[in-house]
C-alpha cells in the first residue's frame, strides 16, 4: 500500500476530486497548505510595511491506496491538476507499512476496500 501525496492549485481541487472519483478512488483527505516553488513572489504593502510573499496557497491531497491503485491515482491527480503554468504542484508516493480502518479494526487491504452498504 502507498500514500499518494498530491499538492495542487486550489482552483483545481474540485477537478482532482472528480478525477479521483472517476478513477474509483473513494477515500481521501485534503488540507489547505501553502507552498513555494517556481512561482513568482508577490509584493504586498501594509501601510509602511512592504513584504515579499513567497508562499502561494495550495491544496494537499493525501490518499492511501492499495498497490494496484497507485498509478491510476497518480495519473488522475496529475491530469486533473495540470494547467501547464509554473506552480502546478507535485505528487509524492510514499510507502505504507500498515493501514487500519478505525471503524472495524480491519487492516491493510481489507482496510482499503470501501464498504458498499451505505
Amino acid at each position: 500500500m502507498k500514500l499518494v501525496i498530491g499538492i495542487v492549485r486550489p482552483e483545481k481541487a474540485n477537478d482532482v476530486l472528480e478525477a479521483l472519483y472517476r478513477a474509483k478512488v473513494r477515500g481521501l483527505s485534503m488540507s489547505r497548505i501553502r507552498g513555494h516553488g517556481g512561482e513568482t513572489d508577490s509584493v504586498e504593502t501594509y501601510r509602511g510595511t512592504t513584504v515579499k510573499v513567497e508562499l502561494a496557497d495550495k491544496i494537499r491531497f493525501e490518499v492511501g491506496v492499495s498497490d494496484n491503485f497507485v498509478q491510476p491515482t497518480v495519473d488522475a491527480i496529475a491530469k486533473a491538476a495540470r494547467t501547464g503554468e509554473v506552480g502546478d504542484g507535485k505528487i509524492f508516493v510514499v510507502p505504507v507499512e500498515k493501514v487500519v480502518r478505525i471503524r472495524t479494526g480491519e487492516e491493510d487491504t481489507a482496510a482499503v476496500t470501501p464498504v458498499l452498504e451505505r
Partner: protein
Amino acid sequence: MHDFISFPGLLAAVTKDGIDSGATAWMLVATAMVLMMTPALGLFYAGLVRAKNALNTFMMSLGAMAVASITWVVIGYSLAFDKGNGFIGDLHNVFLRNVTNGPRAGLHIPELVFVSFQASFCIITAALISGAVVERMRFGAFLAFVPLWACLVYAPMAHWVWSSDGWLANRHVMDFAGGVPVEMASGFSALAAAVVVGARKDFGRQAVLPHNGVYALLGASLLWFGWFGFNAGSAFTTGGQAPLAFINTLLAPAATLSVWMLIDYLRGRKATAIGAATAIVVGAVGITPAAGFVSPMSAILLGALAALPAYTLIVWRPRTRLDETLDVLAAHGLAGFTGILFIGLFAQASWNLTGNGLLFGNPIQLGRQVLAAGAAPVYAFAGTFVLLKLMSLVGRIRVHEADEGQGLDVSQHGEEAYTHGEGAILFRPLEPELEDAEERTPSAV
C-alpha cells in the same frame, strides 16, 4: 418615568398637538438603537459558541426579531399596554387598532413611536432566552416559542409594572427600563428553558470554547451602545430622567467592568476578555431598572455590587449539571434582581422626582421592590417551564444527537459560517449531473 409624569418646564417645547419634536427625535433614535441590540446580541452569542453553530446562534436573534415584531403589533402591545386588569391588558389595540400618530396619553411623543420603542424591548427579551439553549434547540421550535412566550410571559410582566393598572405599578414598584419584564423575565425564563431542553451532549465532557472572542467583544460593545437608547429612552423625553439614565448607563457598566477585571486578576492573574464582555452586559443590566432613579455615584456602586453575584454564579454554574449555556440567568436574571433591590435602598427623589429608597428615608420602597424581585422570577420560570413542556408534547424541541454533533448550522440551516468551496460540487440544473448511478466497485482504500 413610566408614571408618565410631565416635567412642567419642558412643556414650552411641546406643540399644540401635544408632540415634543425634540423628544420624538430622541425616541426615534433610541428605538433604532434598541432594535440594533438584537443583532448585536446575536453577534455576541455567535462569538461565544463553536464555529459549527455560529449562524444558528445569530439566526435565533434575527428570527426572534422577525416573529416578535409581528406578534407585538398584532397582539402583544395590546396585552401589555392596553388597560385591562392588574395582570394583563385588553384587546382594544390588537392589529394596532386605535393607535395613531397622535401623542400617547401622558407623553409628548406619537403613540406609533411608543409602540415601536416597546416592540424593541419585547424582541430583545425573547432573543435573550436563546442564550440558554444554543447549540441544541431546533430552530423551528424556537421560532414557535417566541410569539407564545411574548404573549404569555413578556406582555403580562410588562403590564404589571408599566401599565397604569398593573398590580406592581399600583404598588409603586420602581422599574425604570425593565428589571422585571426584561431582565428577570429573560434570566429566569432562560433557566427554565435550559432545564426543559436539557444539556448539550458534550456539556461537562468536552471543552466547548468561544470560537471568536472578537465577535463577543464587538457584540457586547454594540449592546452597550444600544443600551443608552434602552435606558435613557425609557424616559420618553429628553429632559427629566433621560440625562441621568444616560450617564448611569455609562458609569454602572464601567464600574462592573473594573471590578470584574479586578476579581479576575485576583483569582488567576488574568483579566479575561470574555469576562469583560460579560461584565459590560451585567453592569448594563444592573442599572437598567435603576437608571433614572439613583444618583451617578450610586450607579457606580450598583455597577460594582452587581458584579459579585453574577460572577459567583458564572463560576459555579458550569460545575453543576445545568447547561444554561451562555449564563443568561447570571447576567440578566441575577443582575436585574440586584438592580431592582438596589432601588429600594438607593432611590433618591432629589434625582428622580419620583421617590426615595430606604437610605433616603423611605423604607417601604424596599418592601415594594422585594415584592417585584420575588414575583418576577417565579412567574417567568413557571410560565416558561410550562410553555416549553407543552411544546415538547406537541413536537421535538431539540435536534437529533447526530445533528448536534454535526453542528446546527448545517443541520438547521444547510449552511456553514465559514466556507472555502473546495469539495463543494455545484448542482448544475441545466446539465446532466455527474453520473451518480455509476456502479461503485470495491477499489481503492
